[in-house]
């Protein structure tokens, strides 16, 4: 299979179906046919000549030391080539307990015999077959010197972290919170809990490592392809340019494939040691430990509300879990910075160290957990203020960014509220809970939440080459995680060149291409898209120079009035009858091609002046069986304003995906640890539940028009993560409205409902 498509170059064949041209059109995925026919090559589909299989043995204790491994038994198993343990592991160029490159996480690469969490790799077996390696890993039969696992918040003392998330300050203060609370007519003091959640991308992390002398080729899914060449290289003392990463398709990443993790390093090391390509693909259960997760939080709120329903103070304190050896503190309190107007705002974070794998960024890090709690707390505030939850949010609408005081680059949240409420029928909602039943007598409740996500950008480069035949090649090392980069970026690139998408070849997903930046923070389309567009306009500018300076061109002398590029021709801006094709211009200039380059990134001055966010409003209906406690989200409506929408079909899909994730957050997802061993007992997709189709009976997304002239030249914001925010709170609030009971621990499940009903 790996031979049938040219993934190394990342070239995509032309799409078979489309609906119009380029940006703004709801084109279907250009890689769709490849994917549904199995033609798309994922990392684990690569089988280079002579390849070996690696499987690691995972610790079954959460804290302590490995005291023995039966290496002889493993080595004696037929097909086994090598067993790596701390005793024989070859040296690495960097210390895994340091952070030598951007976004480095301390990780486990058999540096010693300590165990820091259950699931940590403690040995790597390399064999001729996967089955052989798997069985030999089992034969290692480790013994341990174990200490009690610290898994619960309450087992350890919290500490004050230096930073939260990826380098954000842990606290923010504005105004006098205590004074604000003292003046308030109403107060909400509430604590919410969110559990550990795991990314569970459909494609488990996989890597195929091939060395050629001191050059390394990696087939591995990666969200930051070019940057990662340097990071991988650092482990082996080779420069970035010696490392090639091929990552044409990712089967989901959600943040977990932006970070380099121990199992990948061990695989590369084994390949080097053995002089043969080595492949490792994590098993599903191995995805619960070494590759990050959304850390559990406890979030305490103190809200003050005056007699008119205006916030007088908002205090959000998050206590988040991290591992014993690395900090990733879920920045949940930051979700309160930019949403509701308040004279006094305080956001703080504490952390506890547990015997768990290090958390990391997971789809809407900070924002998802923070929004779940904040939107619940705001609903509670609306209740004490005696106001409809939408009315309460409108009274506390922030005209400028509450934390920084800056104006918003664009904010169509009011329109989101209005359009979403209208579509949902919110105006018919009774204020009191437990007022609605369906035809079968089940409780029905309506809730809402505000969605918010920063419009982040990274740095990206792109090139464009216009060819003599009027077609073009555009290149950037983008990452398609399933979100549709192969399509959306291609659409933007074609627009930059004034060409139909069918005349433009797009290369991506390969580290040899210009740096496409990070597919993360919902900023990839904005960043790589602006770079590709700029590369195209650079080409067009050069082309226009040629034409307007060419005496024999119909565009001669049009330099002042300008030209427009469209459908492969340049037109005089003031006279559409005067035009010339790209091919003719090149031919007359005697050129085989014209190259251009472009960059994407945030204008620092603009970033300094304005707060930049996507916004949205989510409305949820839940139906609950009053006796049996089973819950179903029977309707979800989300209205989102996220700047310019490049492809409404894909954007809607992203928002659906986020909202469905919100259903999972609200009702399903939770890693369950055995408190004694610390092991996660539901590390599989049967028992770690995510929503299935039957959990999503009706879902509606509204793309609200928003023109944002400041966020970047193309006005693009992100839609990848915002769908989760707002949704979780909307569902929790709907459950309150259905039952009259407030549940403050996620996920909200049947046992909660039964106990909650009993406590009423």
């Amino acid at each position: 299979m790996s031979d049938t498509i040219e993934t190394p170059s990342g070239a995509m064949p032309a799409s078979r179906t489309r609906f119009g041209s380029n940006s703004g059109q709801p084109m279907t995925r250009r890689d769709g046919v490849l994917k549904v026919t199995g033609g798309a090559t994922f990392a684990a589909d690569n089988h280079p000549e002579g390849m070996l299989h690696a499987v690691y043995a995972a610790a079954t204790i959460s804290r302590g030391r490995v005291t023995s491994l039966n290496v002889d038994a493993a080595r004696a198993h037929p097909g086994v080539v090598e067993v790596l343990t701390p005793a024989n592991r070859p040296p690495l160029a960097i210390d895994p307990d340091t952070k030598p490159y951007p976004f480095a996480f301390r990780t486990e690469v058999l540096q010693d015999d300590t165990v820091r969490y259950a699931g940590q790799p403690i040995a790597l077996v390399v064999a001729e077959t996967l089955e052989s390696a798997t069985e030999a890993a089992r034969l290692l039969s480790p013994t341990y010197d174990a200490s009690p696992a610290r898994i619960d918040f309450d087992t350890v003392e919290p500490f004050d972290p230096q930073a939260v998330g990826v380098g954000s300050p842990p606290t923010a203060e504005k105004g006098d919170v205590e004074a604000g609370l003292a003046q308030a007519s109403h107060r909400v003091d509430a604590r919410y809990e969110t559990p550990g959640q795991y990314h569970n991308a459909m494609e488990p992390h996989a890597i195929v490592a091939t060395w050629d002398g001191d050059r390394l080729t990696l087939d591995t899914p990666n969200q930051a392809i070019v940057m990662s060449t340097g990071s991988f290289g650092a482990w082996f003392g080779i420069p970035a340019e010696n490392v090639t990463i091929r990552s044409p398709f990712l089967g989901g990443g959600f943040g977990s494939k932006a970070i380099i993790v121990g199992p990948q390093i061990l695989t590369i090391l084994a390949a080097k040691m053995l002089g043969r390509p080595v492949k490792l693909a994590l098993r599903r259960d191995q995805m619960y430990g070494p590759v990050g997760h959304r850390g559990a939080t406890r979030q305490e709120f103190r809200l003050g509300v005056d007699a008119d329903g205006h916030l007088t103070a908002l205090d959000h304190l998050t206590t988040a879990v991290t591992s014993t050896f690395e900090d990733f503190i879920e920045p949940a309190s930051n979700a309160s910075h930019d949403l509701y107007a308040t004279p006094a705002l305080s956001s703080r974070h504490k952390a506890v160290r547990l015997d768990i794998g290090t958390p990391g960024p997971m789809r809407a890090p900070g924002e998802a957990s923070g929004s779940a709690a904040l939107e619940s707390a705001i609903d509670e505030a609306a209740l004490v203020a005696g106001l409809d939850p939408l009315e309460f949010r409108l009274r506390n609408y922030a005209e400028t960014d509450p934390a920084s005081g800056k104006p918003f680059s664009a904010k169509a949240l009011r329109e989101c509220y209005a359009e979403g409420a209208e579509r949902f029928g919110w105006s018919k909602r009774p204020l009191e809970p437990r007022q609605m039943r369906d035809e079968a007598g089940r409780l029905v409740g309506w809730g809402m939440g505000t969605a918010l996500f920063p419009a982040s950008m990274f740095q990206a480069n792109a090139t464009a080459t216009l060819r003599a035949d009027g077609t073009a090649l555009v290149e950037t090392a983008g990452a398609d995680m399933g979100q549709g980069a192969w399509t959306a970026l291609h659409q933007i690139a074609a627009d930059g060149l004034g060409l139909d998408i069918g005349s433009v070849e797009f290369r991506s997903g390969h580290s040899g291409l210009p740096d496409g930046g990070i597919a993360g923070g919902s900023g990839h389309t904005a960043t790589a898209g602006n770079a590709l567009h700029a590369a195209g306009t650079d080409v067009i500018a050069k082309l226009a120079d040629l034409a307007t300076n060419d005496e024999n061109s119909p565009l001669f002398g049009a330099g002042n009035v300008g030209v427009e590029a469209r459908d492969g021709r340049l037109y005089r801006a003031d006279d559409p009858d005067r035009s010339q094709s790209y091919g003719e211009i090149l031919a007359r200039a005697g050129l085989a091609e014209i190259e251009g380059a472009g960059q994407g990134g945030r204008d620092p001055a603009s970033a300094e002046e304005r707060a930049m966010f996507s916004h949205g409003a989510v409305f949820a209906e839940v139906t609950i069986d009053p006796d049996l406690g089973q819950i179903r989200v029977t309707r979800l409506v989300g209205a989102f304003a996220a700047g310019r929408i490049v492809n409404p079909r894909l954007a809607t899909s992203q928002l659906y995906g986020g909202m469905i994730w919100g259903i999972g957050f609200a009702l399903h997802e939770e890693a369950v640890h055995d408190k004694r061993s610390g092991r996660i007992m539901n590390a599989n997709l049967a028992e770690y539940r995510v929503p299935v189709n039957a959990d999503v009976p009706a879902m509606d997304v509204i793309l609200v028009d928003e023109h944002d002239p400041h966020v970047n030249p193309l006005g693009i914001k992100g839609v990848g993560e915002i769908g989760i925010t707002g949704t979780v709170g909307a569902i929790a609030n709907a459950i309150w409205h259905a039952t009259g009971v407030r549940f403050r621990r996620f996920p909200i499940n049947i046992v909660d409902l039964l106990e909650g009903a009993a406590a009423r």
Partner: protein
Amino acid sequence: MNLFEYVRPASIAEAVAAAGEPGSAYLGAGTNLLDLMKGGVSRPSRLIDLTHLPDLGRIETSPDGSTRIGALVKNSALAHDPDFAKRFPAVAEALLSGASAQLRNAATVGGNLMQRTRCSYFADTASACNRREPGSGCDAIGGENRSHAVLGWSDHCIAVHPSDFCVPLAALGAIVEIEGADGRRKVPLTDFHRLPGDTPEKETVLEAGEMIVAVSLPAEAAAFAGHQRYLKVRERTSYAFALASAAAALRIENGTILEARIALGGVATKPWRSQAAEAVLTGAAPGREAFEKAAEAAFAEARPSGDNAYKIELGKRVVARVLAMAAAGTPERMPALPASPFASETGAKAHV
């Protein structure tokens, strides 16, 4: 996964002979067994693949009027057989509430009866588990046991039998046909699975080498077709095991329940028929009061085995509800969400 021998017998006799070898295991669709082998939970040295045996894939009516289902009939084929579904609607409903469409398309009748518990300590080879490793202990006791049993458990094992299919089978008096080296025998489904007692590793009455060849439903079971439902409470709308489930089948005439059949799932260590609850209903008028009484009777012996006391109250409510659903009458068509509390095709009738 350990190295194992793969045998593909051509006849039942060959299969049974091959299974005489210690360490052998029968392979149905493998939806349960292969997962357990990959996790090192089951480590058979020989797999005897039954899926190529002739004649075990049929649903037929026997001369005595009973319906005989071959051990290799796929779960979905059985549920979608119109004639079968008409006569045993709760069985079809239970089947369709289990697993996912893909799994049901593969899973066999024999494999469904024989599926192992979903206790997460059973599946985790680093945990102590008497069922997996006799005498090693039971880490579910004192651990994460919210989904464990409140009926039929012992100090040696508290795990739930996970099958949905077996619940209406238990209610309707199904018979398991077994073939072994000594020939064929028949065992009522309610006697087929064993209580854990102090030998939880002995899950069924199958002796070494014996295989299931068929399951039959007696002719008289069809008399319940008009009032027969399965209800399953679970943590998501589909594709989840039961926290508590129940099958109910009633014969109602002139406003009186002549005969009732009730079995429970998700709450007991084996498919759990409750004759005590059935007795409460015999001769009673269908209605809330009788149903709640029956529910009490069904759980009279229940005790929490850990953090699962809620299952007793939940289980009672499931029984009362499924009885009300059965009394309201089997729906004309299979609900779009079989066995779900959200299934009500019958609208308001789903609530008493």
